[in-house]
């Protein structure tokens, strides 16, 4: 072999090998979900399930009590969908206002928005809880969903940056054609910021799908539980026999995350590389 090829081979062995090492835990989780519960830890060092069983999925899907895992998935899907709608509408309106409109106090409110970016949730968590309790919103999706309709500083900032790259001449042309301000937002800007909206949607999906703290604070009847909470519940009433079911439902909870990633990979990678969204 030529030295060039040897070098290439060494590169792929190191980089590829390290990737396999990093992904081993995920493979272990997926494979364990196909093992018989009592054999998961006896055969922890082997990836291949022997025998290969699907029953964990059936058992896990039954959930616990009267609520099947389908209920938790439906709850989570509704939760995610409402937050998505909230973020897309509110963040695009607010970002347009900041990026394109001149009004008294714009600088002030923009600075306030940037400051809220740095604010730890812990500071507002307790009073928010008390406010929502006073409104009698506890044990409903309202405390988790309603704030989404008032914007999210990170996504507003992302969209503002994106809108600033769109030439203002387009707005001016639209004004000449008789468009009012809302028309510019609706007909000119909105169609052009679709890539940034896609990034917003994808990361909203990830953060909401994985959210545990919010649901733990606000939801308390199992019929309203989200997938994250259901997994947490599996863990807390674990008995020797339901390891397999817990692993199986862990895998199920990850499937949408993977599917979205593989469909929208380009947006995810670009979103992180350019804006530093945490992943």
């Amino acid at each position, binding site marked *: 072999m030529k030295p060039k090829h040897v070098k290439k081979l060494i590169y792929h062995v190191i980089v590829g090998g390290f990737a396999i090492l990093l992904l081993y835990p995920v493979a272990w989780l997926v494979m364990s979900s196909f093992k018989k519960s009592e054999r998961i830890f006896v055969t922890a060092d082997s990836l291949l399930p022997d025998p290969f069983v699907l029953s964990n999925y059936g058992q896990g899907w039954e959930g616990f009590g009267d609520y099947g895992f389908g209920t938790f998935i439906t709850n989570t899907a509704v939760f995610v969908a409402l937050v998505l709608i909230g973020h897309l509408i509110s963040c695009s309106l607010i970002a347009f206002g900041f990026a394109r409109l001149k009004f008294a106090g714009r600088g002030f409110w923009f600075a306030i928005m940037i400051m809220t970016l740095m604010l730890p949730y812990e500071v507002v968590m307790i009073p928010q809880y008390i406010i929502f309790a006073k409104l009698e919103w506890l044990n409903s999706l309202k405390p988790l969903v309603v704030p989404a309709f008032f914007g999210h500083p990170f996504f507003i900032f992302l969209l503002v940056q994106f809108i600033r790259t769109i030439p203002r001449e387009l707005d001016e042309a639209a004004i000449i054609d008789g468009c009012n301000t809302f028309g510019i937002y609706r007909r000119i800007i909105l169609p052009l910021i679709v890539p940034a909206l896609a990034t917003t949607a994808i990361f909203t999906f990830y953060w909401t799908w994985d959210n545990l703290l919010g649901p733990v604070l606000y939801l308390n009847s199992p019929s309203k539980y989200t997938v994250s909470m259901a997994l947490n519940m599996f863990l807390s009433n674990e008995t020797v026999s339901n390891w397999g079911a817990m692993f199986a439902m862990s895998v199920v909870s990850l499937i949408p995350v993977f599917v979205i990633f593989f469909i929208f990979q380009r947006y995810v990678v670009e979103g992180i590389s*350019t804006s530093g969204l945490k992943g």
Partner: protein
Amino acid sequence: MQTNMKQNLWGYLFIGPFVIGFLAFTIIPIVASFYFSFTSYDLFNSPRWIGLQNFKEMFTADPRYLHSLKITFIYVFAGVPLRLLFALIVAMLLNTASRAVGLYRTLYYLPSLIGGSVAVAIMWRNIFGDEGVVNIALMSIGIDPVRWFGDPTAALWMLIFLSIWQFGSSMLIFLAGLKSIPQSYYEAASVDGASFFQKFFSITIPMLSPVILFNAVMQTIGAFMTFVPAFIISKGTGGPLDGTLLYSLYLFKQGFEFFHMGYASAMAWVMLVIIAILTSIIFMTSRFWVHYESEGGK
């Protein structure tokens, strides 16, 4: 005047949702939280003013608090630099013309993609179990198995490993930064006979320093607020022996388990101050090590 009014009206129509949301869900809670931090409040009886008592108790009469603060610092200051180091090494490995880079980038990012989920915390807990894969691997190379859940220090390291494992998003940001360094700099250095390390320290690091600063700030803030893995892995207890009682978890327990809402609010304010101090330290030191192209090189 007429048009001015109209402009203001349009402006506030658009940013209105933010203004209302900020007043309702941020500023009122901030003021309330500040007030609660000087009270004793259990959610059921009205808050009772106790002045600085909560803050005094934290630092003089609550060893659990000091312990929680200590392990959170270990978690942040061991986890974040190691995570950034890994991210940088991998980004440099991937900054080649190889066609497989796209695939590798995806594979290395996957742990970060799923890292915040309950499923992964459950997986991690079991991989580090007494009979888990990690112990089997340790035994096979002749090291005694570690009782990850019996030993508080080991349990904390298990959380740190989990955070390091999720280096993917920092790596993607580093990779974008590396790609923006003009190749001609390296070529010129090569002509002058610079070694790999000379190029690394005099081209890569300075050119990448704004990105390193950004990553360091974001990751430090994020790490300080870590909640889910500690909550799941310890089943909400922060155990063993408070070994995984990270700051956010202890705050949550004080507020929603013991109903010490005043105390938890005070904890939140200390957290805000610590994060502000850490961030300003990073920014203040940054003028010694961050290089901005526009300054014409420093």
